[in-house]
């Protein structure tokens, strides 16, 4: 079923959640390497059960892009004991909602369901981790669905199309340059044998994580998980992604012409990820630039001068490998993409030249922290947040995240802007509307 949440841009800071959670997490690793995180939450008789595989478009090869996402679709196509369509049927007839997404770094499956159906879901997920059919006929038919999905998200969507182009010029060596959904030619070409091999390589317990939050007893849930997933044999550790993006030594630029009403401008700078001490400052910087209507880009470009219909920025704190810091703007009618590109660049230069105000810094920190608290309201989001932190080194990092954000100073922001936003590390994409 399903699809990519292609979040190249605007995966807004999965805002993390407040403290009281992490200390009650039951965390363990089964003998076969499966990581398990369980958190009881008895407010409602519901549970969010999620399986995260440490594989995404990052693990793909040129010529076979989109395979991780294609496989995600196939995960709903049955096993020998539960035929095609049975997964959705079983979940829905038990009142559950299921879905999945593929990102650059991970493939995630979730079922949100009444807590008393947890055992069923555990069995279904354990079954498809090991026994997926991957029948050639089903693959052929689902290929057409994936192609339609690409048409919707990319071919017929000016913003989607442009972001793909910018990523592809920004990354020469690292697979972050590939579209998550894959190039059309690759989607059409990928063979069943390749999909099966990809499944065998990456869908193994020691490359996966189970996260559940909801109204269950953790010891009993763990026992059930152990019985269902524990018998799946450990696989050979997948080969690490070795590609490292070399430093960029000059601006890169792409122009796209497509039927559209307004132009779009994207700027992307190579920046470090959460492993760097600069990551919390980049997170705060991103919020100062684009978090809400009091943020710099909105207030200046959209509100005060009305140069843009929309303007924003995004930083991927959770990215497994160093990724891009994005800026974008849609010029108002009558404004040119050149103007908006210059204005976005000026904002970056201003961050290097003059300190942000104390109010801006405090507001950004409050926004980040508050978003954490709001996430605690949903079992689904609580589970996803635990998973995000576990993927970057451990769910307990969730607790130190806010501390790190709180420690960011005005001087840190000026410094990281100077270090990371050099013009020669920038990639620029412009979409020019082709009149109807």
């Amino acid at each position, binding site marked *: *079923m*399903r*699809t990519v*949440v292609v979040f190249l841009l605007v995966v807004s800071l999965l805002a993390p959640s407040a403290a009281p959670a992490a200390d009650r997490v039951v965390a363990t690793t089964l003998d076969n390497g499966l990581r398990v995180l369980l958190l009881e939450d008895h*407010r*409602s*008789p*519901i549970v969010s059960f999620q399986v995260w595989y440490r594989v995404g478009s990052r693990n793909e090869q040129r010529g076979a892009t989109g395979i991780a996402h294609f496989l995600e679709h196939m995960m*709903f196509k049955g096993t020998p004991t539960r035929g*095609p*369509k049975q997964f*959705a*049927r079983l979940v*829905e*007839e*038990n*009142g*559950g909602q299921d*879905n*999945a*997404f593929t990102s650059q770094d991970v493939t995630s499956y979730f079922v*949100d369901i*009444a807590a008393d159906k947890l055992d069923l879901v555990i069995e279904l997920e354990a079954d498809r981790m090991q026994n997926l059919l991957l029948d050639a006929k089903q693959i*052929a*038919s*689902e*290929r*057409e*669905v994936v*192609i*339609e*999905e690409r*048409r*919707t998200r990319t*071919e*017929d969507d000016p913003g989607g199309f442009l972001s793909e182009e910018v990523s592809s010029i920004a990354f020469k060596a690292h697979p972050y340059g590939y579209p998550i959904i894959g190039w059309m030619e690759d989607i059409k070409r990928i063979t069943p044998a390749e999909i099966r091999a990809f499944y065998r390589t990456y869908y193994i317990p020691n490359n996966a994580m189970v996260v559940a939050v909801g109204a269950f007893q953790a010891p009993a849930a763990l026992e059930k998980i152990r019985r269902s997933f524990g018998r799946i044999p450990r696989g050979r550790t997948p080969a690490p992604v070795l590609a490292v993006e070399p430093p960029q030594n000059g601006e890169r630029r792409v122009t796209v012409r497509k*039927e*559209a*009403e*307004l132009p779009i401008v994207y700027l992307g700078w190579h920046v470090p990820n959460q492993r760097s001490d600069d990551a919390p400052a980049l997170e705060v910087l991103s919020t100062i630039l684009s978090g*809400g*209507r*009091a*943020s710099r880009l909105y207030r200046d470009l959209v*509100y005060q001068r*009305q140069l843009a*219909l929309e303007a924003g920025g995004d930083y991927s704190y959770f990215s497994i490998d160093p990724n891009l810091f994005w800026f974008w703007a*849609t010029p*108002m*009618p009558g404004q040119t993409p050149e103007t908006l590109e210059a204005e976005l660049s000026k904002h970056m230069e201003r961050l290097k030249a003059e300190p942000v105000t104390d*109010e801006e810094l405090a*507001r950004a920190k409050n*926004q980040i922290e*508050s*978003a954490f*608290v709001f996430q*605690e*309201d*949903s079992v689904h989001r609580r589970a996803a947040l635990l998973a995000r932190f576990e993927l970057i080194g451990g769910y307990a990092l969730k607790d130190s995240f806010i501390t790190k954000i709180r420690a960011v100073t005005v001087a840190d922001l000026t410094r990281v802007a100077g270090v990371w936003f050099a013009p020669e590390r920038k990639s620029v994409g412009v979409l020019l509307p*082709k009149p109807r």
Partner: protein
Amino acid sequence: MRAVIVLLGMVVPGPAAAGAPLAHREVLPNGIVLLVAERPAVPIVAVRVLARAGAVFDPDDRAGLAHLTGALLTRGTATRTAPEVDSAIEFVGGSLEAVAGRDNLTVALSVQKKDLALGLDLVSEVVLSPTFPPAEVTRKVSEIQAAIRRSEEDPGTVASRVLARLVYPGHPYGVPVEGTRESVARLTRDDVVKFYAQQVRPDTTVVAVVGAVTVDEARREITARLGAWARPAGAPQSITPVTAPASPREETVKRELTQSTIMFGRLAIRQTDPDYFPLSVASYVLGGGSASRLYARVRDEAGLAYAVYSWLSTARYGAAFAVTAQTRTAEAPKVVVMVREELARMTRGAVAERELALAKQYLVGSFPFRLDTSGKVADFLVAVEDQGLGLDYADRYKERIARVTARDVQRVAAKYFPPATFNRVTVGEIK
């Protein structure tokens, strides 16, 4: 994600834990209906103020007026400029949005519990004392015009607008909520001031307060801020519901795209109609989930679409039922035939027991997830109140859905699914 379920103002209400009241309800002396649900576990509060001031009240030659008014509520009050409103709420990491839809204008607040007083101050300011500064009106008009222009890039939006015009000819629902670029150009500050004065009034306003708050506290805080809001003389404006369906029409919009977006739609019924429940089940069997007939045939078996689904759109003055699919241009005629065949099949024979059971169990069983955050509960409460469904609606929904039989489904399908009764819109590279 699997499929984009675009819910045009859809409320899919359902059961809460049987017997437990969904919320405390009382009517303040000035007519405001106050709904409070205590959810103490997480220190946040969600507030909704729903005023019966949606686009359906736009004067004929003023399309987009409610939408503009909604967008301007937070753009300046008696005590704060627009940037001051933004800075105040964002400094505490909260959010405050005001937006008008077809029937209503809604102000939505989310704050941490510790910031509730500030949040409610802002809510009451934007509801009671918006000043509609001329510069903000000018600014917002050009912004809305640009947004309308940009939305022309999205085939789903384009198709929805045309479909609304075909389903609701001559009714305000047939006109886009945001108006057109031309109609918005004609709107003035005077129009906004007048619309606000006439349509935003306590006796048609519903306030929901949900989260880490007690009933007493909510009553005290809301009364302190909105209690003195005077009820105007005269009855609120009434709107004529859409009654007879118009003769179905077909329209195409040419766009240079690789896919065609196809939408079928017709008038349907509100939740207050007993047939709403079997119709909900029928819609789910036809195109509601990934085990539905349309999903199975068009997507799973034929590989013709990524998105294909049906939905019931509730609205106070004229509900609708619609089906949509996006497919590669060359195959659009085939998908049209498939949708029509599946609609017809629903009218001809009873649904299988397993299909019926699945739809019913899904609709009932998934309901807790529609009420799993304070924000969702607040949205649900104001919708239930606005539609006049009663706070027991959640329990009633569950019970009514459980009682739906295969024969009921076929009966309502025979009434609402005959393919010839549907309008149809296609957006794409039409030859």
